[in-house]
């Protein structure tokens, strides 16, 4: 630890970290564009200039050096004294801001970034009210640089964050900075568009409205959005994300800083992977089937109906003929509630976990450049396991004891007619019921299916319960590394549906409102080890 002085205040921070980062984390709002904690230091925007004390060349006494230094490139050393609150620094910031706006089109009213734009914020806080530029502005072109991204060159401040991202984190290096001086532009090599599995991050780190996400383009003003902390269910990595929503609709997902998992990044598959939650084909009402007759009971009746049907069944056959198949898309808390219910009505019930979707190979980033002798340090991994909570469910099955089956063993026994009653949870974004699984539908006297979309199993089920998407639920997921992380509810389920946690809570015999936290407290007695969750520390909004 080193002690430094910023604006007359003493601060303790890690030796060697950039002064800018230390100041930002301690709450100073220092303007900066090119510095990003996840990227190498470029020190090109000159917005973070500060004054620093140095020994006077003649007297050796410490005094303010006449020149300014970029705070992003100055490492913390013990005893360092700097200041940002002097007139010299303020004038430098003002001049920089004037420079950045020289050719800027000032088209905030039609710009997607407006409301979360560092040009806007800094102009307001550190800039001057009017431009002294009398000459016509240089007008730069807009470029379609890839399947997901647009580049409005005229809004660019050439901080090169985006370029450094594609070189250092994605490793694909599609972006480059062409020309020099006033002709500087971000570009790609024609015909080699920005198209890699991590490219969406360049839009997040662009401090201005230059790089834009085609998917979100002109959809919503950002100040109308509410952000909710969540975890991406796209793969077992479990990136921390923020769900941005308005009017009960999700508009975009953004990564949230998490030093233990994803740092500042997320992949495109996760970023754009929420579309299924808005599919009109989703099951939104509970359904009861008796022979050909289908009815839709009210949610108030559901707990009793489910409980009585299972109890009847156990009485008629036997408790070891009951099985519950949990899904790796369930939150640990929801799965615990279901297990609790099943083992209560049928203490000998078997438990299993549904299929774990696997696609391709894990992808590590930065990807090795062509011909590189060795793999660079891995900064991000997209896993081949495309579900968020296999580990959580496995841990739960382990502590629950009793008969625990693999999905294959369950399928085999079910096909032989070993089970008379089953509760099967789906909740997979993609079709998951394979041919063999579809045949199981007719093998149970009582089949309860909880799923997002209709399939052969829901068609055969006596009771169908709508599953909700993760943005409509709350609970926790345990990622591939065993880290349990909570996610919050961003929006309400579609009209007619109820969050899984809530009806499972009621079916399991509890009263009141479900919340992940509440269930974790209930779980604590039995399974303390599963109730600790890790929440990434928030970073101040100005330290983007």
């Amino acid at each position, binding site marked *: 630890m080193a002690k430094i002085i910023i604006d007359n205040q003493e601060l303790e921070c890690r030796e060697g970290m950039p002064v800018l980062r230390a100041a930002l984390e301690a709450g100073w709002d220092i303007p900066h564009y090119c510095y990003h904690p996840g990227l190498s230091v470029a020190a090109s925007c000159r917005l973070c200039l500060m004054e620093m004390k140095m020994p006077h060349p003649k007297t050796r006494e410490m005094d303010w050096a006449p020149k300014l230094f970029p705070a992003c490139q100055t490492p913390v050393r013990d005893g360092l004294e700097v200041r940002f609150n002097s007139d010299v620094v303020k004038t430098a910031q003002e001049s920089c801001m004037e420079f950045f706006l020289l050719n800027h089109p000032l088209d905030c009213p039609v710009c997607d970034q407006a409301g979360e734009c560092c040009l806007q914020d800094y102009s307001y806080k550190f800039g001057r009210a009017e431009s002294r530029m009398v000459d016509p502005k240089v007008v730069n*072109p807009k470029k379609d640089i890839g399947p997901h991204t647009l580049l409005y060159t005229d809004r660019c401040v050439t901080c090169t964050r985006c370029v450094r991202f594609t070189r250092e984190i994605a490793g694909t290096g*599609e972006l480059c900075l062409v*020309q*020099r*001086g006033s002709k500087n532009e971000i570009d790609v*090599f*024609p*015909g080699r568009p920005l198209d890699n599995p991590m490219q969406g991050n360049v839009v997040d780190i662009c401090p201005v409205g230059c790089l834009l996400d085609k998917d979100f383009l002109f959809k919503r003003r950002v100040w109308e959005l509410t952000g909710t902390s969540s975890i991406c269910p796209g793969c077992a990595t479990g990136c921390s994300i923020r769900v941005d929503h308005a009017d009960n609709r999700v508009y975009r997902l953004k990564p949230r800083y998490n030093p233990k998992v994803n740092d500042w990044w997320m992949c495109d598959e996760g970023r754009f992977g929420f579309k299924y939650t808005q599919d009109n084909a989703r099951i939104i009402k509970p359904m009861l089937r008796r022979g050909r007759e289908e009815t839709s009971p009210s949610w108030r009746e559901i707990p009793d109906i489910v409980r009585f049907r299972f109890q009847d069944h156990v009485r008629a056959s036997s408790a070891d003929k009951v099985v519950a198949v949990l899904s790796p898309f369930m939150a640990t808390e929801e799965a615990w509630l279901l297990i609790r219910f099943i083992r209560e009505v049928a203490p000998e019930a078997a438990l299993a976990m549904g299929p774990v979707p696997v696609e391709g190979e894990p992808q590590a980033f930065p990807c090795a450049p062509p011909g590189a002798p060795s793999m660079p340090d891995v900064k991000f991994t997209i896993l081949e396991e495309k579900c968020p909570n296999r580990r959580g469910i496995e841990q739960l099955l382990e502590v629950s004891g009793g008969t625990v089956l693999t999905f294959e063993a369950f399928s085999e026994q079910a096909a032989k007619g070993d089970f008379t009653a089953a509760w099967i949870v789906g909740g997979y974004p993609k079709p998951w019921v394979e041919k063999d699984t579809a045949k199981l539908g007719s093998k149970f006297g009582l089949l309860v299916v909880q799923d997002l979309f209709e399939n052969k199993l829901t068609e055969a089920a006596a009771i169908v319960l709508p599953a909700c998407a993760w943005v409509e639920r709350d609970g926790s997921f345990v990622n591939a590394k065993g880290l349990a992380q909570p996610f919050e509810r961003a929006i309400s389920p579609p009209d007619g549906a109820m969050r899984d946690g809530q009806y499972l809570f009621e079916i399991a015999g509890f009263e009141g409102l479900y919340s992940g936290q509440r269930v974790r407290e209930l779980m604590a007695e039995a399974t303390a080890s599963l109730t600790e969750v890790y929440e990434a520390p928030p970073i101040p909004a100005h330290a983007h």
Partner: protein
Amino acid sequence: MSWKAIDRNQAVVDADAPPLLSEGVREKILSYTHRYETKRAALLPALHLVQNTLGHVSWQAMVEIAALLDIQPSDVFDTLTFYTHFWTHPKGEKVITVCRSLSCEVLGGAAVLDALKARLGIEEHGTSSDGQYSLVTEECLAGCDHAPCMLINEKLHKNVKLDDLERILADGDNDRVDMPRSDLFDAPPVAESKQPASATEDDSRTTDD
């Protein structure tokens, strides 16, 4: 979309085109890589070599250089365009460079540029139809005390007047540098016979030490 955006998804290099760089040039570029710690460091000498051999560095040449040095074509594009010395399309026999910096600007540099554009019928970075002249602008040519200035190849024309332009353009020696040179300057290489066969690729003083 109601506005125009340049479509960067369109390829400019035909993937099936036969290689542009000759075997000799390729070998030469690879031989540069041994001088440096990383392969990519050989990019500048490679660009010089290609420009000197082909007259310019085309999109396809960029892709081929990138492949040789294990970097992305965008890296080559990035470095190349930083230097106005490199051309991405063929240039004329002589290159006229008009100064666009401060002293020249206030003393009529823009008028010189406009007159040249009109006379040659080209815009900046264009080449006249007879292939004689290409026109570009550059920051300060370091002749501010004689502004406005322009270069024809390496010869600096100072105090350029509009009614003098015709004469300058007509002069076949307008790019001849009349600098007193040592008599060694144009002297033939010492042992001519010992020069490698690819001597033409070697005339870049910046590339070869």
